[in-house]
């Protein structure tokens, strides 16, 4: 049996490192209160700030079109937006490296994947970090329904799944401008965000929900805005429940989201996804059942579901059933090297920062750019392909050069990084290395380090 502290660090965190202190089951949930302070220590730009930057860029562009001399100012506004976007990966990395509760950061990224949204141009890409901090982070330990409402009203999601351009065909503005529905968000909301594709909903429910969601709009200065002028009037029936009437309002939408969040199929869908993400690609059905029950019995409180996961024996068995996704693989490396958040952000480490970003793309997981709204694949064999593993090995070789001064003895590095998770053959192979770099490469490229 692998020690609890090893499993806690590797399965529920970003692995072991010289700075990490051993955690037990209770401590994993105990440190959620500290999540705010780490976000404050490494902040990102809020939606409000980003919208101002976008407006500034658009104004500067107009000016530059009329007067070429103003081109420089336009370039500066673009640069500002690019920096805002780049801050996402930088601060996320720094937070993980310095946090006292890696489990919270893992959960944060789990929900970011569950509610995948991708920026399609510079202006929207710059909103990605704000989306995570405003729509997800405050609710990671709260109620799922609250997270759902925050996501569905965030400009980043509204833009990504086209909701901002969906108009009620019979709304005042829809009729005047001859605009109509777009089903994109409504369908993914049922299929991906709440009930799950196997649940008992149909095209009629998708259509009715699309009608109900009209009204979710944007203002260029304020961000989210409910606009009754684009809302489809009339009652909508979703899964047999009626919503709305002649005077559309946001509360009708929120009441549908509450009901969807409270649906047993949603509970099961979320429990299964969490168990798959953290424990196993084929999780124990009893674990899912236990988590589903905790969710339904707690008015959809996510902490109750996490606690149910952590108290179930299946969560502490057979380490290594999952493969770390590239983002977690890279962060585990930095963790193993004992890098601090400040060190990572240091100007001197520009090359390392760039390399983290490029390596994510090379390993098939460009930062916050999943190929579709269903996010990244979970199964180990989706990632540990010949080409995927070749890229991980190549990165391990490069890292072993970059960080060689941080490791004196490969055997010590192996013990500090994998503790009792290292297998006999790996221990033997590391003992046979002739130089430190080779040892570091073996540890980082090993199956034990890439699994959790």
């Amino acid at each position, binding site marked *: 049996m692998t020690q609890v502290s090893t499993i806690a660090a590797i399965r529920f965190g970003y692995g072991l490192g010289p700075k990490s202190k051993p955690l037990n089951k209770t401590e994993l949930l105990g440190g959620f209160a500290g999540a705010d302070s780490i976000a404050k220590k490494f902040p990102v730009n809020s939606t409000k700030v980003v919208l101002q930057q976008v407006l500034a860029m658009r104004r500067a562009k107009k000016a530059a079109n009329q007067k070429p001399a103003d081109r420089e100012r336009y370039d500066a506004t673009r640069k500002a937006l690019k920096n805002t976007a780049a801050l996402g990966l930088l601060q996320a990395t720094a937070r993980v490296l310095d946090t006292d509760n890696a489990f919270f950061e893992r959960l944060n990224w789990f929900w970011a994947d569950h509610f995948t949204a991708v920026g399609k141009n510079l202006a929207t890409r710059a909103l990605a970090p704000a989306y995570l901090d405003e729509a997800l982070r405050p609710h990671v330990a709260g109620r799922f329904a609250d997270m759902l409402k925050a996501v569905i009203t965030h400009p980043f999601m509204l833009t990504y799944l086209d909701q901002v351009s969906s108009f009620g*065909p019979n709304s005042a503005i829809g009729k005047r401008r001859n605009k109509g529905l777009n089903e994109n968000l409504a369908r993914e909301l049922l299929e991906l965000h709440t009930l799950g594709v196997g649940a008992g909903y149909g095209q009629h429910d998708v259509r009715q929900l699309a009608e109900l969601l009209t009204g979710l709009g944007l203002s260029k200065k304020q961000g989210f805005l409910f606009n009754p002028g684009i809302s489809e009037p009339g009652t909508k029936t979703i899964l047999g429940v009626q919503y709305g009437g002649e005077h559309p309002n946001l509360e009708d939408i929120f009441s549908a989201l509450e009901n969807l969040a409270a649906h047993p199929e949603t509970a099961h869908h979320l429990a299964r996804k969490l168990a798959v993400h953290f424990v196993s690609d084929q999780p124990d059905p009893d674990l899912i059942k236990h988590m589903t029950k905790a969710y339904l019995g707690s008015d959809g409180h996510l902490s109750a579901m996490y606690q149910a996961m952590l108290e179930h024996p299946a969560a502490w068995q057979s380490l290594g059933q999952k493969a770390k996704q590239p983002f977690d693989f890279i962060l585990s490396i930095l963790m193993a090297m004992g890098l601090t958040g400040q060190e990572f952000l240091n100007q001197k480490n520009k090359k390392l920062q760039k390399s983290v970003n490029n390596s994510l793309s090379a390993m098939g997981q460009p930062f916050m750019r999943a190929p579709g709204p269903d996010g990244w694949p979970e199964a180990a064999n989706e990632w540990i392909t010949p080409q995927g593993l070749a890229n991980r090995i190549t990165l391990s070789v490069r890292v072993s050069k970059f960080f060689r001064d941080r490791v004196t003895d490969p055997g010590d590095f192996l013990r500090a990084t994998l503790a009792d998770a290292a297998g006999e053959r790996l221990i033997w192979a590391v003992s046979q290395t002739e130089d430190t770099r080779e040892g570091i490469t*073996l540890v980082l490229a090993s199956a034990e380090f890439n699994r959790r």
Partner: protein
Amino acid sequence: MSKPSLTRRGLLKSLSVLGCSAAAHPLLTTVTFASVPGDARLVVLILRGGMDGLDVVQPVGDPNYAIARPNLQSEAQDLDGYFALNNGLADLMPLWQSRELAFVHAVSTPYRDKRSHFDGQDLLEAGTTPDAGFAISRDGWLNRLLQVMPGATGETAFAIGQENLKILSGDAPVSNWAPNTKLNLSERARMLLTEAYHDDPLFRGAALEAMELADLMVNDAATDAAASDEMQAMMRQDGGRSDNALAAFAADRLNHDTRIACFSINGWDTHRNQGGALNRALPRLAQSILTLKQGLGDNWAQTTVIAMTEFGRTARENGTAGTDHGTGGLMVLAGGAVAGGKVYGRWPGLAEADLYDRRDLMPTGDVRSVAGWAMADMFGLDRSALEGAIFPGLELGQNPGIIL
């Protein structure tokens, strides 16, 4: 704890004699001895996101088309008097004229009603029939093709790109690689890593395949058969991640012992501003096909490219100058082996009563039949292999005669 069973003395000895292979991997060791299964080459392109067939090959001869799409008026060129080709594929017109380009309209997989991209794509790649009691299988139909193909080796089929393609997953060995992937490890580090992976089949298998493929690429690049400088430059585009890089790499492999290649092209989920979105996606598809043709040279004459998508889109445009998820769609076929210059399929019409669910283009054919007949003609497979092993539960129907 029991000790690993290998003898460390033996391994240490072999470590000192560098250069010998770490293990016999079934993937490539047989290649030298096996004969390549024929000259026919098949490239399958998976168009992820649900391509709107109605906008790509537009049924301008159907009076209901203009009614269904008052605001989606993309430029198109006449194909056969009834259908017109979206100008996003204008670069393929020379292939249409030389009869190396064909389309099959109003086709779909057996997937119905839920209209999920992800289930739709899984079923497209699995090639099974869910309503006939066959679950969405874990292996893909191109892998099942390899299982019945005489002389197939691990190099016969290539899954190209970073993603793990389900369509090629299964019991038959295939090669998985992305262009521009390197594996610079000392022989010694390879041996130690192979030893460390020994008890983990997933890592062991992937590492052995990676090592053999990395070597294969290095060796092929050093021989006379290497691709031209221009094609090699293409393979490095965008770190080997662009569509063009995938196409150039596919052509290079198909010029060697590979006969089946597959990769995917994204960008077809056109819920809004479809005109703009297709103007980006279609030229990428056209360029991929043209890069394949250029790279394949004389081998293009024996090549069939089949591009397929998980579903078509709504017959009517939606309220945001786009279309939502639908059912019946379009297949694109190209290559010297294709009986081109023709839009195949049975046109169901676009009157409301003719639509599926009063919403989508009615599928009148199954994409698996089209692919099945193509494979039958290319690789000499019989009907029972197609209806039994490759597409279980499918009734192939009449041969549309798409392969010359």
